[in-house]
């Protein structure tokens, strides 16, 4: 089971939970309230501001219309009059100008722009040409009159505008102060950060502004063009940026003059109630959170104390203390948890005991297997090392585990790639009869690689020493081969035996009749009938050597017969003359026999060979044919002695061992010499009939093969040889009992 470890503590979780369950609903409620109140507030403010704007508009219209009305009355008089009367006009201009605060001056010019009358009366100006002025040019061609854009005359510091209307003989113009507009702005709404009004002329230049400098400096309202384009007769409401602040701007344009009246409502005002509400909600949240925190702290402490006790107990359990002392918990649920923990501890203890036993058992099993078992991971690092491999390599598990297989079993280096490939491909690998040498001796082993199943990458490597199996197999093959050769030889011998008997018998008769001719009647009669005498025949035979020839036939025939007799023993199970013998005694007798053997004595002195006896004195007597066993032993001694003699082995010796395997009910005889030894090929063929290393005619090559048959066929035993060139040979005979 994979557990994703979290670093969140109950305390953190609880705090987040509190925040979410307390703050979020409050926030949601707050935001909803703010939005709702802001919406209604905006509606109210918009309504109030629109009304305010309408009032201001109305006031301005009234303000400028009074001037227009007065101008229209003069125009009317001028148009009605037939003769221009300067004094009447002067009076008219005076009455208009004086009766209206905003009117600064009024003037009448003719169609050429020559000033006819001005009020206040200015004789310097009267008679001058105003035809260059825009208001003159525009008014003259206009039917309804012309509003000039504002300007600040040299002698004033507030803006002035003019309205000109054409009359039949020129234009009449009134100049009126826009200063009162400033008072509209200031009186209509007290100037503060929240709300203010501006008025701009038809060119977008401020003519009234809470910041008077903007008027004096003739600053332009940059939004003027925008609103002028949008103007459709109805007040416009838009959010605008002014002096880095956001304002809800209500705009209307006074059609007659082309002036723009703008009311700026600071958006923060709309947000103010929301902010106040937010502050209250925040305060409320803090209070609720504080109470909740105090309660939660007590609860959390209770929980965390209990948990800490349980954690501490769990750690003790983890450390192997299966007798935990669990304190009493504050909460019922934790007491239940505590009981469960106790129960769990007992079960863990039980399982661990079983697990340890099981593990020990597995370890014992692995160690008991008389096979090399090595566990490796996917990179070839040793993870398992059983006792057998400790014995074979001399390396303890502690030394080998964690090291690379190459380093601890160097002879597996060549196999490493295959082993890793087997792990990768998850295929069992078996390499059989891999040869190797220990101290010059050839050994064989089977290497099996079993990739681990499941998700773990690795393998178990089993190495079996099959040297003995190989040898046994080879021996069995040899045995089979010898059996077949022996059968063949026996068959041949049987076939030879009958004619040979005839030959030998005839040779014997011939000897009787020709060599040792007896003066018996039948011989004398036969000589007579042949016209000779017995003496002549004897004499002839003697001269021609016939008796010797016949004797030679007899000798050769007997020898053949002896060979045939031996060959027949390959197949024949002789009628056994078995009785119980002590092998140690039989060996000693054979040694004595060999020492007195004429043939042995003839060629060398057997007594000069050192005999070392390593007998098992508790060896039981075994049922066997004593003579036959002696024959076998004698054969081995003879061959060994001959070999040592030929090789001129110094301090030649035989080591004779006997031992018993009571379990398998076998006794073993080992005859070890320190002669020249044999090569592999010779070892393989040593028991074959007629195989000899001696010169032709010296030996028959039947000695050891007959011995082999005596042991294997006649006694159901086993016979083998181990030899090493230049070191010596060891014959091993095992006999059942």
């Amino acid at each position, binding site marked *: 089971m994979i557990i994703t470890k979290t*670093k*969140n*503590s109950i*305390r*953190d979780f609880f*705090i*987040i939970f509190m925040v979410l369950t307390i703050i979020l609903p409050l926030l949601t409620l707050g935001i909803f309230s703010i939005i709702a109140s802001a919406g209604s507030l905006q509606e109210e403010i918009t309504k109030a501001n629109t009304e305010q704007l309408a009032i201001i508009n109305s006031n301005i219209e009234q303000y400028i219309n009074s001037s227009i009305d007065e101008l229209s009355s003069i125009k009317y008089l001028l148009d009605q009059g037939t003769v221009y009367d300067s004094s009447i006009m002067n009076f008219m201009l005076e009455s208009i100008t004086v009766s209206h605060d905003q009117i600064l001056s009024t003037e009448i010019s003719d169609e*050429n*722009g020559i000033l006819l009358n001005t009020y206040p009366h200015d004789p*310097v100006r009267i*008679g*001058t*040409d*105003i*035809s*260059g*002025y*825009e208001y*003159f*040019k525009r008014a003259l061609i206009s039917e309804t009159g012309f509003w000039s*854009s504002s*300007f*600040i005359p*040299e002698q004033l*510091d507030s803006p002035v505008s003019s309205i000109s209307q054409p009359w039949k003989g020129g234009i009449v113009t009134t100049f009126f102060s826009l200063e009162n507009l400033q008072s509209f702005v200031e009186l209509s709404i007290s100037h503060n950060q929240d709300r203010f009004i501006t008025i701009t002329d*038809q*060119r*977008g230049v401020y003519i009234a502004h809470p910041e008077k400098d903007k008027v*004096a*400096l*003739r600053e*332009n309202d940059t939004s003027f*063009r925008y609103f002028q384009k949008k103007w459709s007769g109805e007040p416009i409401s838009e959010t605008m940026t002014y002096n880095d602040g956001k304002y809800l701007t209500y705009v209307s344009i006074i059609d007659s003059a082309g002036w723009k009246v703008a009311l700026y409502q600071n958006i923060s005002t709309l947000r103010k109630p929301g902010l106040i509400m937010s502050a209250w909600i925040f305060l409320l949240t803090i209070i609720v959170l504080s109470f909740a925190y105090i309660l939660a702290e007590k609860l959390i402490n209770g929980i965390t104390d209990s948990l800490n006790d349980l954690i501490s107990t769990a750690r003790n359990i983890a450390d192997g203390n299966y007798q935990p002392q669990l304190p009493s918990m504050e909460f019922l649920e934790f007491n239940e948890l505590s009981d469960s923990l106790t129960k769990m501890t007992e079960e863990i203890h039980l399982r661990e005991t079983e697990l340890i036993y099981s593990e020990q058992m597995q370890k014992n099993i692995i160690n008991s297997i008389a096979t090399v078992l090595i566990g490796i991971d996917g990179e070839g690092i040793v993870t398992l090392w059983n006792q057998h491999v400790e014995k074979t390599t001399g390396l303890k598990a502690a030394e080998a585990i964690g090291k690379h297989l190459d380093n601890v079993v160097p002879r597996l280096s060549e196999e490493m790639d295959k082993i890793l490939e087997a792990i990768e491909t998850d295929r069992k690998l078996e390499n059989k009869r891999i040869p190797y040498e220990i101290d010059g001796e050839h050994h064989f082993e089977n290497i099996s690689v079993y990739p681990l199943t499941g998700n773990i990458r690795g393998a178990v490597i089993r190495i079996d020493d099959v040297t003995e199996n190989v040898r046994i197999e080879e021996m069995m093959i040899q045995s089979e081969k010898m059996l077949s050769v022996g059968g063949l030889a026996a068959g041949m011998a049987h076939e030879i035996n009958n004619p040979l008997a005839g030959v030998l018998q005839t040779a014997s008769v011939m000897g009787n009749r020709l060599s040792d001719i007896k003066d018996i009647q039948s011989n004398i009669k036969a000589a007579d009938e042949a016209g000779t005498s017995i003496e002549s025949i004897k004499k002839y035979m003697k001269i021609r050597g016939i008796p010797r020839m016949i004797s030679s036939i007899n000798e050769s025939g007997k020898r053949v017969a002896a060979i045939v007799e031996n060959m027949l023993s390959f197949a024949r199970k002789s009628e056994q003359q078995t009785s119980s013998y002590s092998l140690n005694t039989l060996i000693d007798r054979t040694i004595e026999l060999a020492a007195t053997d004429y043939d042995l004595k003839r060629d060398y002195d057997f007594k000069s060979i050192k005999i070392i006896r390593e007998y098992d004195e508790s060896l039981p007597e075994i049922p066997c044919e004593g003579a036959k066993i002696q024959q076998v032993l004698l054969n081995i001694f003879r061959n060994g002695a001959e070999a040592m003699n030929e090789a001129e082995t110094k301090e030649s010796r035989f080591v004779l061992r006997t031992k018993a395997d009571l379990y398998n009910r076998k006794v073993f005889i080992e005859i070890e010499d320190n002669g020249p030894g044999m090569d592999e090929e010779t070892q393989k063929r040593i028991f074959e009939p007629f195989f000899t290393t001696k010169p032709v005619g010296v030996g028959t090559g039947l000695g050891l093969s007959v011995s082999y048959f005596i042991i294997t066929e006649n006694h159901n035993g086993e016979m083998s040889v181990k030899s090493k060139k230049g070191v010596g040979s060891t014959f091993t005979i095992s006999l059942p009992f």
Partner: protein
Amino acid sequence: MKKVTLFLSAILIISALFISIIYFRTPKAVKMGFIADLTGRQSQLGISVRNGFLMAIDEINADGGINGREIIPILKNNENDLEVCLRETKKLIDEEADVIIGPLTSAMVVPVLEASGDTPVISPTVSTDRVTGIDDMFFRVIPAASMQGKALAEAVIKNNEQKVVIILDERNIEYTGAFADGFKEKYEGATGIKLQIISFSDKSQLIGISHSLIEINPDALVFVSSGVDAAGIIQQYAKIADLPQLYSSYWGKASNVHEYGGSTVENMILIAGFENPIKKEKEIEFQENYRARYKIDANFAAQYSYETVLLYATAAQNGKSTNPQTVKSEILKLEFFEGITDNYSLNEYGDVIREQTLFIIRNNEYDYY
């Protein structure tokens, strides 16, 4: 709890880093100071200069500013007062203005240069000869007043005017004096005829001057005054006697003498900044934009003011810096600067070398003379 604190701290640190990165990555703005007469007698011209100044800044900012830096205008009003001018200029320096555009009148150049130190000052309209031929941080795009006077004198000479009277406004003597000197030098040098100079320093003197002029009965009157003052004299003159040939300095056209003079200023010959008979595309575009923005036609003051901003922006852009010396070097390095109406260059003293045009008022409009 510790985790929550850590989390909040992390958010604060990240926010602080983010804000710092945003703050430090925002290029520092170029502060462009402006000083002119925005109120008072010369305010009409001052407003024009300010309009051109602000329009140029808005256009440059819309195109990405100077080397990616936004231009922030800082406006100051010198109220046609030398002390106020000195004080306001010092304020601009305190507010770390990278450049000062202004002043409007030649009279104000002294306090401005006194306070500006190493900060470049580029004036659209100051033409006094006092600052001509000096290797300093003052630059201008209008020819020196004496050059204007000489150019107008050539026309007067050509018209074979014999009895010539110059009427000048003493209140702007830095300009009017230099103009008159240039005119006088050229005229008297060429004709050997002494010309007469009448000056005034108050509006109340205008009627008296007009009467004096009638008595002199000149062949030509040369006005080195504002349009309204010139018209004030001419209107009174015209009421009594036939007018002689009228001439005017830059100031006349700049301050709409045709408006104040009406028919009385018909045929007045005026020297003014260069204008193409056939308007250049750039000139048309400038005029259209200006009219759309301010609902009036741009005069030379607005145009020159606009050009001063462009000149500074070009120099700072080329030098990739607003360092005063770099800007100066780049301005002087310019082989020519493409103005609204004409190409011009500045000599090693920062004085402009550009053409001038003679106009004549016909049908109350300015026509090429």
